[in-house]
């Protein structure tokens, strides 16, 4: 007697399901991130297109926040926070990416350029115990894990702030800032072209 149930190769089906999941999951996550960003940044006056938040965030806007296009806020073990106090201005340029636990706080003015990268637990606040002074981060800046940018600091274009650095003075363009307090050295001294 032969079985009436057609034999289906189970592993093959599972494989197809896995493949389907691989294709669908990132898109679903992306859609959710875009929707979440719409909700989280509902109080933001100027919000660009395709701003995505992949995790929870704390947003407190009593001033003016302007977000560029295609921003990414990565989710993780700590929510990032954006705080803009009354009368303050917080600006973020296009294509900038933030890892989790980043804290941006504006009492007067915090301005971030385009195509910047902020690693986890970076802190930017334009007020400390002493004073309030605007922070400017120019384009293509990379700020590594746990760095703290102090009030009144301007970080030049294409510069890198090393992990854990406390930046207390201006960083010129194409410079590596490292240490506490951060010292600036030419990026040419420490960074080579990839592959050479």
């Amino acid at each position, binding site marked *: 007697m032969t079985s009436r149930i057609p034999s289906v190769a189970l592993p093959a089906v599972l494989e197809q399901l896995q493949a389907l999941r691989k294709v669908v999951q990132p898109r679903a996550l992306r859609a959710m991130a875009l929707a979440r960003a719409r909700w989280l940044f509902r109080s933001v006056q100027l919000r660009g297109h395709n701003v995505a938040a992949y995790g929870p965030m704390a947003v407190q806007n009593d001033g003016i926040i302007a977000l560029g296009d295609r921003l990414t806020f990565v989710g993780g073990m700590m929510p990032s926070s954006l705080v803009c106090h009354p009368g303050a201005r917080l600006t973020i340029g296009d294509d900038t990416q933030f890892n989790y636990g980043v804290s941006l706080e504006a009492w007067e003015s915090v301005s971030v350029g385009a195509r910047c990268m902020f690693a986890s637990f970076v802190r930017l606040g334009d007020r400390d115990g002493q004073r309030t002074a605007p922070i400017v981060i120019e384009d293509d800046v990379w700020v590594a894990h746990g760095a703290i940018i102090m009030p009144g600091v301007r970080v030049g274009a294409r510069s890198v702030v090393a992990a854990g650095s406390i930046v207390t003075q201006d960083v010129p363009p194409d410079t*590596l800032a*490292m*240490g506490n307090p951060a*010292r*600036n*050295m*030419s990026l*040419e*001294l420490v960074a080579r072209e990839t592959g050479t």
Partner: protein
Amino acid sequence: MSIRDRIRTFIVDTFFVDEFGDDDSFLRKGLIDSTGMMELVAFLEQEFGMKLEDKELVPENLDSLSRVTAFVERKQQQRLSQAG
């Protein structure tokens, strides 16, 4: 010990590299990374009692043993001429 030897000894002891010539680029040869460069700067300041300005931290001054030696000598000359 000469300035060159003192700097070379520091580099050998700190970064565990020995096979390099006086004109080899620290960067291109992969001898010293960015954190190491900060250590080298701190060493120069301590060992030779000088203060390095941020704008002096460029490859022309620091990217090979001969350049570092020349840079330190130049700085010491400057200080002597200022003192005298």
